[in-house]
């Protein structure tokens, strides 16, 4: 069977989600592998969310927030960035390839950039192949 990756994306409501909507209203085309979850601010994205997504079998996780300085809640995106740096190290230790987790800034007017980002990431994930986390976890679960 062809590999159809699933990418879970967390988008902040004010910039990135609006940007993704703009990609839609402008009829940009991008790969259908992305599933978007709306949060009010990228600062809301709890590391647990990312880990849960991988645990549930996501092949990639994308986080998008407002550009630095543009956060609707002033500094949420900076906090997100800090957490991202930390969790990147953590998932590396878990054996998850670094390509699978990505953080990008998308403003409300960057529909095109969003579409390109999704296409790039999908391509990158297709290259690394399916995530093994879920099956590993399942095997472990069976063993225990």
């Amino acid at each position, binding site marked *: 069977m062809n590999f159809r990756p*699933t990418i879970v994306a967390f988008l902040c409501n004010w910039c990135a989600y609006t940007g993704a909507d703009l*990609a839609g209203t402008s009829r940009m085309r991008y790969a259908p592998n992305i*599933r978007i*979850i709306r*949060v*009010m601010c990228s600062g809301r994205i709890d590391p647990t969310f990312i880990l849960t997504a991988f645990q549930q079998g996501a092949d990639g996780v994308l986080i998008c927030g407002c550009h630095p300085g543009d956060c609707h*809640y002033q500094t949420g995106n900076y*906090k997100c960035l800090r957490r991202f740096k930390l969790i990147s190290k953590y998932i590396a230790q878990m054996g998850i390839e670094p390509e699978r987790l990505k953080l990008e800034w998308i403003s409300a007017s960057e529909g095109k950039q969003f579409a390109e980002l999704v296409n790039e990431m999908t391509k990158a994930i297709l290259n690394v192949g399916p995530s093994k986390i879920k099956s590993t976890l399942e095997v472990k679960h069976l063993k225990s």
Partner: protein
Amino acid sequence: MEEPRIGVYICWCGNNIAKMVDVEAVAAEVGNLPNVVLAKTYKYMCSDPGQDLIIKDIRGHHLNRVIVAACSPRIHELTFRNAVEKAGINPYLFEMANIREQDSWVHTDRSEATKKAIDLVNAAIHRVRFHEPLQKRSVTVDPATLVIGGGISGMVAALEIANAGKQVYLVEKTDRLGGHVARFDLTFPHLSSAKQMIHPIIQRVENHPNIDVFKQSVIRDVSGYIGNFKALVQNGQPEPLELKFGNIIAATGLKSFDPSKIEEYGYGKFPDVVTSMEFEEILASGKVLTKHGKEPRNIAIIHCVGSRSKVYHEYCSRTCCMVALKFVNQIRAGLPECNIFEIYADMRAYGKGCEEFYAESTHRQIIFLMFDQQEKLPVIRQAEKTDDCNMLIEMDEKLSGESIEVPVDMVVLMVNMEAHDDVKDVVHAIGVSLCGNQFFIEKHPKLDPVATTTGGVYIVGTCQGPKDIPDSVAQARAAAARILATIAQGSVAVEVTTAFVNEEFCCGCQTCIRVCPYTAISFKEDKKSSEVNEVLCKGCGTCGSACPSGAITSKHFTDRQILSEIEGIMSMSYKEI
């Protein structure tokens, strides 16, 4: 908690969704999921009959959760929340799946798009199970209004509100009111006097008992929320003044583009190349003379300077064509023998009376020359002594297809309108967003051209995008209408999805207090736990993701809800349809 009874509605949106997503298949697929009582499709869910369908089903099938898979929640979440509320369900027990902007409109493979729609609806189903009823809250509205910017739109808005007997604070950055309009000599297309128009308005604003004008002032530290803002006005005094107000109108306007960036035009190099704003002043002074003090025998007006260009600004500045036509009428009156060249790309005489003005102006012996503003700009160079003119413009004339040389003594550059350099400061102060062109983004370009995504903050005039005086004035009044209606009502609904603390889990580490950008969280010594001030909290949720013990989370964006959403997305991923 009662057992969830979920109704799922999938919208065709005419063909917008149905063309790319097999809506019936989605309905069939999710119809059998646990807790889903029914799954239906309809051509336009947002229409009256569509909403009636939901209301009828809620009553008939005792639904207690509703999902609509349609367009972006940014468009219609409120519509459907109101609909379910009418049927007696708490509006927060509703969830929307965005299968249009983020699915049908961006994908080309129907089966993939349909699968994605199923995943998204499934995620919503998972999420909505954990939704909790939230109570709407309203706050009283302070009847005072803050207007930022003392140009014509700011002043008109201020007057409209003040004349209704309500207090207005008008904050102007410079030392005078009137903005750009006060610098104009005449207005188009009726050539009435701009000064005679703006001066009575300035006088009224300055003398109005309900308007406090702060000149040479900036606003800072805006805090609060719709109905109850406060801010400091800084005007050189050591002690800034604190103001309280219920609504904000931003009328900060735009500034002129600096044409010295465009090498071809030699602005700054040739003294007789002037911008449109400078030319306004030249005309008003009555002395249309070159820098050598001579009457120019040839004047050229170049349109689209910095506008409609891939290099400078892509947008059209909307007013320059008509201002240029105004100029040629003025030049013709003052210099009957002068050759006037108007170098344009498209003549945008779209306003009321403007095309007629254009037609009239063509009888004033103007030589219209067309250039391609994207291909090759005209080049201004110094003339030789033998040329009998000051400068020469070389250009490719599009209507004749000839490469020509235009003798000129004075050149007027119709400069683009662009954002102020300090636009970001205003953006941060009042919490609005900027589009790619650095204009403030309205809540919706058609439905709500003056409101913003931040409640109680309105944008009028050119800061929302270039526009002429009548359009700016109409916007100013439109914002005033909205504000007067809120003031008349006396109260307004506020953010419901704030953070809350589960005191049992709170370990008192105070991490949340450190990360909150609104100082909405405080530490209660007696309980040794954090507490959220719900009026200050804007619901960003940063505290929730920082909390090590999971004690604090955002209403409607709880960990449980988002984790279920992830599960929902993943649980169907490998199914084939």
